[in-house]
Every structure is written in C-alpha cells, then in structure tokens.
C-alpha cells in the first residue's frame, strides 16, 4: 500500500472536519477525493503531508507514519496545496529552480516529468509569478510539486482555474505519471475529472459516503434520469421546480437533468404541464447518470 488511512478524525473548535476516515491507496493508483467545499478534503491532505496532526487514528505514506516519520515523508512526496504558495516576486524559472534546489535536484534531471505542462509557460519563464494569469500560476505550482520526482503526489484541486484544453492535457500527464508508479491522491470540483480516476471517495461533512470505481458509483444512481430542454432555460428550470412530481432538477449544459418522485414517470404528462407554462420546443429523453448526478443526489 502506498497510502493507509485508519480511523482518522480531526476537529477544529466546533467543527468536525474529519470523522473516522479510513481508506487505502495502492502503489501507482490514481485516487480521487470528491466532495463539496468544506467537506474536509484539505484537512485530509494536510494530515497526510504531515503539516497537521490528527486527533485520532493513524496514517502512513509509503510505509512511513505521518507523525513519527514525517521527515521521510516530506522528502519523498510532492504536495500542491489548493491555495499554493509560489514566490510572487521570483520569476517562473526561479520558482522552479528554488523547489529543485531545496529537494537537492536540478530542473534538468527530472525535466521529462514536467515537460508537457512546462512548455506552456516556458515562453514566459522570465516573467514574475505574480504577473501570470490565474491558470498559468496553477501550472507552475504543479511543476514545482513534481520537480523532485516524488513517490506520492498530493494534488488539492490542481485544475481549479485551468482552461479545458489544459485540463485535458493535465490529466493525460497524470496518467503518464501513474505509469511511472507514482501514486496520486487528487481532489477536484470537476466531476468529469472524477470519472478519470481509478477509484474515488465521495466525502461530505468529514465522512466518506462511498468508495468505489467511478463506473460502479454511477451504477448506484437510484433513479431513471431524463434530459429535458425547451426554448427558455430559466423558465424551464422554474417550471420544473414548481412541478408536483419533481424529485430533482439540475441544469447540464444545453439540457436539464430531471428525476421524478414516482416509480412510473409519465413523459406526456410532463410535456403537457410544460406547455401549459408557455414553454415550446420541449424535448424529454431518457439519459444516463453521470458522477455529477450521483454526487448531487448524495449531497442533497
């Protein structure tokens, strides 16, 4: 096992940030921690990277105990905190240089690890980090976390603020790091990214709701789900919310996802109802649940 977490709990003054959390991550596994803001994700990352003590429970990373062997852990893991701490007044290259030096390595030695991401910010390597765009900073922070070739990589919302193309490239890169037997623990608010993990843990209010492969988690979705569209999205959402048989309605791009309270859903009846609300071009089609649907249903 690369990461073992056993019965970890942590409270701040009157908030239970983590309650009896347990899970294991295998070597080379890409494991996702998925949960809403304030669910306890960052607390978990900080405990595993030895920056914070748990109140109860035990955890090991690469076989080392997070309390007694913290020095070994710090040397061998990479951590990209959600609110990262780049040196704003150092240039792009100087930041990277700095992180390489404190881990006793050089940019050249592990360049192949960061290349795919770094080439995108390399044209600006003499620019101060403070003057980069939001997403460019995020990419630099990732390079800094990777430059010493860690055995385990902790990424706390690494792609927040990163554009769709770069996100795709970023995940392709994570898959390549995995091939090199690097274990990755990653949290993300993007549900399409959750689907790319080997396994995910859904967490909420400091508790794990479910741990499984993304495919299995989606299969557990309890209800048939329908794509509904009409000529006016805002009116459509308001009308569905006022419908007597509604269980849930969530916008999903050009459609909304609708679920019904009843066991037997009647599409014709819904269409008539929406027409009575002066909506037109109404389409109702069955669709399949995504991780995002599952997540929202669990968090409801």
């Amino acid at each position: 096992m690369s990461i073992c977490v056993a019965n970890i709990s942590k409270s701040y003054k009157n908030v239970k940030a983590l309650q009896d959390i347990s899970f294991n991550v295998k070597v080379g596994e890409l494991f996702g921690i998925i949960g809403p803001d304030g669910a306890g994700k960052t607390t978990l990352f900080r405990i595993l990277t030895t920056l914070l003590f748990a109140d109860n429970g035990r955890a090991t990373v690469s076989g080392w105990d997070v309390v007694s062997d913290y020095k070994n852990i710090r040397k061998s893991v990479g951590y990209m905190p959600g609110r990262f701490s780049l040196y704003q007044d150092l240039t792009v290259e100087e930041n990277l240089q700095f992180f390489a030096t404190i881990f006793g390595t050089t940019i050249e030695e592990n360049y192949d690890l960061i290349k795919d991401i770094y080439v995108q910010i390399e044209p600006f390597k003499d620019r101060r980090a403070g003057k980069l765009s939001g997403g460019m900073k995020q990419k630099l922070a990732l390079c800094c976390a990777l430059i010493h070739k860690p055995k385990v990589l902790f990424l706390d919302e690494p792609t927040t603020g990163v554009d769709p193309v770069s996100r795709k490239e970023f995940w392709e890169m994570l898959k390549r790091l995995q091939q090199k037997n690097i274990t990755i623990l990653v949290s993300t608010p993007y549900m399409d990214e959750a689907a790319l993990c080997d396994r995910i843990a859904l967490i909420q209010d400091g508790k794990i709701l479910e741990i499984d492969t993304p495919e299995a988690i989606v299969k557990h979705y309890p209800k048939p789900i329908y794509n509904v569209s009409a000529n006016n999205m805002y009116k459509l959402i308001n009308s569905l919310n006022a419908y007597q048989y509604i269980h849930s309605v969530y916008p999903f791009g050009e459609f909304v996802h609708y679920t019904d309270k009843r066991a037997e859903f009647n599409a014709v009846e819904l269409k008539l109802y929406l027409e009575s609300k002066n909506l037109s071009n109404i389409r109702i089609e069955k669709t399949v649940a995504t991780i995002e649907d599952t997540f929202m249903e669990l968090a409801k």
Partner: protein
Amino acid sequence: MSIHNVIQVEGLTKKFGDFTAVNAISFKVEKGEIFGFLGANGAGKTTAMKMLIGISIPSSGKATVAGFDVFTHAESIKKSIGYMSQKFALYDDLTVKENITFFGGIYGLSRKRIRQKSAVLIEELGLEKVANKLVGALPLGWKQKLSFSVSMIHDPKIVFLDEPTGGVDPITRRQFWEMIYKAANQGITVFVTTHYMDEAEYCDRVSIMVNGKIEALDTPKKLKEQFKVANMNDVFLKLARG
C-alpha cells in the same frame, strides 16, 4: 451608439512592454444579455475586463461601458457597474454583515439603504445563521454567492464576473447560475468568464479569446454548428490552442 448596446468595444488593445496581452478586440453587448467571455489561460480575459471596468488604461482602441468612455470617464463607469474579481472578492476578516456594510458604504449607499439591502440579501441567500460570522470561515461557494450579491448592492446596470464559479462544487455552482439568470431577467447585463463549458451553454452569446484576440463570437448553438461539434467543450478544444 445604439442605446441597446451597453458595452461597445473597438480595436481595444493592452500592451505590457512589448508583450501584447489584448490584441485589438471588438464586440458589442446588449442590455440584459448574458455574455460569456471565454479563452485559455493567459488569453487576456482578465486584462480585457480590467480595461472595461475602468481600472486599467488601454494602450489603444475604443470602448464605452454603460455609455461612458473608458479613457475619459472611468470614474462614472465604476459607479454604474459591479465587479467580482478572480481572486479577491470579500474581506475574510470581516463578518458577513460587516462586508455588506463596507461595500454599501463604498458605493455611497445611505445607512438606511444599507440596512434594508443587508436584510434582504441575507435572507435571500439564507445566511441568517452566519450573518455575524467571519467571511473567512464560510465555504467558498457561499462566499461567491455573497460576493455576487455584494457586487450588485448599488443596483448596477452591468456586472462583470471573473471566474465566479472556479472551484465551486456542482450544486452551489448551479445555484450561482440561477442568480445570474435572475439578474439577467431583471435587465442587468452579465459579462462572465468561466472555464466550465456547461456554463458556456447557459450564456446568450459567447466569445472565445486566443492569444489576445477574439477568434469566435456567437450563440452557443451557432458556434456548435459552425465547428460541427456536439458541445461547447469541443468548440473550445478546436479553437483554444490557436
């Protein structure tokens, strides 16, 4: 100028030294429109937005916002618009109520008006229980919703939202968009950037910036037709790497 165009931009450019961050962009935004301002990291969105809200002087070009010229009437623009920045939104070390009072004051609202607004806002957002808590202790999504309301405390004609839902969880993100719809429905123009492509679908029109230039601008439906793809994510993937 047509009275319906609340934003008019022509050849707007911003240079930093010899680097051109925004390269001669032109577009118009109508009253009550939800305008999605998309682009890859570093494409120039935030830089362009800063010129439109009157806090950064353009290198060249023309722009009027709410009928005021960005070169000569930046102060008037600031009073007629709301702005939610990509990074800073509220003071973490002030309570919810204190933040509302503070920003109400900045926009010159009377004490009475601030008290009224404060009560309405807190109720609408369901923040009664945390009204006297520090904003820093709130989940990100709540902060963003509060921040949006605060940016509209002076009833502006236009709001500029720079990645308001970045990092926000799926449910809160959708609640945020309901607030955007509601504002647009009341005639407020919404100018918004996002990296969530499902959110691009919720915009009336969308522009996509690549390396400082606007490379596409249309309704989501037309853009999908133009690029012969099924969703906005694929439109973006086709364009963004230039």
